[in-house]
């Protein structure tokens, strides 16, 4: 009796892993391409067929996180943001697939990008940096770390401006309070400061070189003030932040 019970137990123990593998393979196979197609259709974008093609090329392949990718599409679809930004996130994943990179971690980071998008953070530059990393052949882990650092910088810079009373007017708002910048201008300035700090750090700059960091940021904002944002907005931001603030922002990003 005991022998029979042991045999059954051993059989179950042996079958367990096999069943798990079969179940996981089954899960991949259970998501038909049409479901991705339908989910992607909720996000009007030029790259629909490219993204779908990339997914198709790996669908059913061992280790391909099909369920996560599908969930990412579902996560992005209802976010009240520009479709271009959602498309950019999906293109990032597609590009990584096309380069035969292991995308497990990148899909996870893409959820962080989706969250940032929902928060209203200007993520275009962050995605651009990740795309640059893919083109340069950087490792996926380094690219993921870069995305996370840049998202941290965006939040820190945005919060710094809020702290100094510089607010972001709602897009399309008829009335912009005196303490607020138009959304487009605010986003551009946040993105540029965050990008400056990130470039400074990745180029080997010390976060404690506050004057150097501030000098770079102010050069960039002043130039932007002549072209893509109102110069009074750039000046106003520069008047309200100082070198130590950027050191604080930089330290938060490398912590």
């Amino acid at each position, binding site marked *: 009796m005991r022998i029979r019970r042991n045999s059954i137990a051993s059989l179950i123990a042996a079958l367990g892993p096999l069943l798990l593998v079969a179940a996981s393979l089954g899960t991949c196979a259970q998501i038909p391409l049409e479901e991705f197609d339908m989910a992607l259709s909720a996000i009007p974008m030029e790259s629909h067929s490219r993204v779908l093609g990339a997914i198709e090329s790996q669908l059913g392949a061992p280790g391909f996180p099909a369920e996560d990718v599908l969930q990412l599409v579902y996560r992005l679809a209802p976010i009240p943001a520009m479709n271009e930004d959602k498309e*950019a996130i999906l*293109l990032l994943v597609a590009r990584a697939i096309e380069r035969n990179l292991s995308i497990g971690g990148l899909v996870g980071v893409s959820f962080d990008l989706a969250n940032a998008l929902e928060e209203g953070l200007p993520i275009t*530059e962050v995605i*651009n*940096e990740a*795309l*640059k*990393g*893919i*083109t*340069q052949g*950087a490792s996926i882990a*380094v*690219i993921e770390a*870069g995305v996370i650092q840049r998202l941290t910088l965006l939040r820190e810079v945005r919060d710094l401006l809020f702290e100094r009373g510089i607010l972001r007017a709602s897009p399309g708002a008829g009335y912009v309070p005196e303490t607020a910048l138009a959304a487009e201008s605010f986003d551009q300035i946040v993105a*540029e400061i965050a990008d400056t700090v*990130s*470039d400074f750090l*990745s*180029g*080997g700059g010390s976060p404690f070189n506050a004057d150097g960091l501030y000098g770079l940021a102010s050069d*960039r904002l002043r*130039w*932007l003030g*002549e*072209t*893509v944002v109102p110069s009074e907005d750039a000046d106003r931001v520069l008047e309200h932040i100082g070198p130590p603030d950027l050191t604080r922002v930089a330290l938060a990003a490398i912590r």
Partner: protein
Amino acid sequence: MKSDYIEVVLREALTEEVASAAQRLEGLEERIVHELGDRCPRPRIIDRLRELLAPTRNGRIGQLAVLGATAAIFLSLGLMVARNGQTGPTLTPALAPTVASNSNHEVLFVVPAINANKVSVVGDFNGWEETPLADDNEDGIWTATIPLSPGRYEYAFVIDGRWWGQDPSAHDYVQTFGQYSSVRYVGGGGDGA
């Protein structure tokens, strides 16, 4: 005494030739880029070099002087390439890669890469996907014109699969993921456009 005299005359002749050759070479790069900007007609860099290397009125001495001046140019370009830390076996750089833009913000990308098979530009304006440069007349000068709205742009050239991130004519450089990219400001005071 006689040989001293000949040496003096020879030295003076050489100095004169070098000076005149240097004058002709002054601003050569700018002239070529300007012509490329017009794109009609396209400059023939090889022809220009051939012309410079052709015998002069003073025969042998003239050739030596021009050869010397040409060697100096290539030496300085070599130093520039070495400074950038980017050398490639398939490249014969005649001039530095460069970028110019006009008042419509059409940015002209120019890369001299005489032995290259494929030259592209990648940047944040094309999602870091390769936009090919063309060398229709096979003179080794690759060009592409891309319309860009005012703003700050990062870019690099990819020459036969190799990343060339430090364009000497860029306004700035950034280093990410261990490699350089060039920065160009378009509009405003960035390009004078």
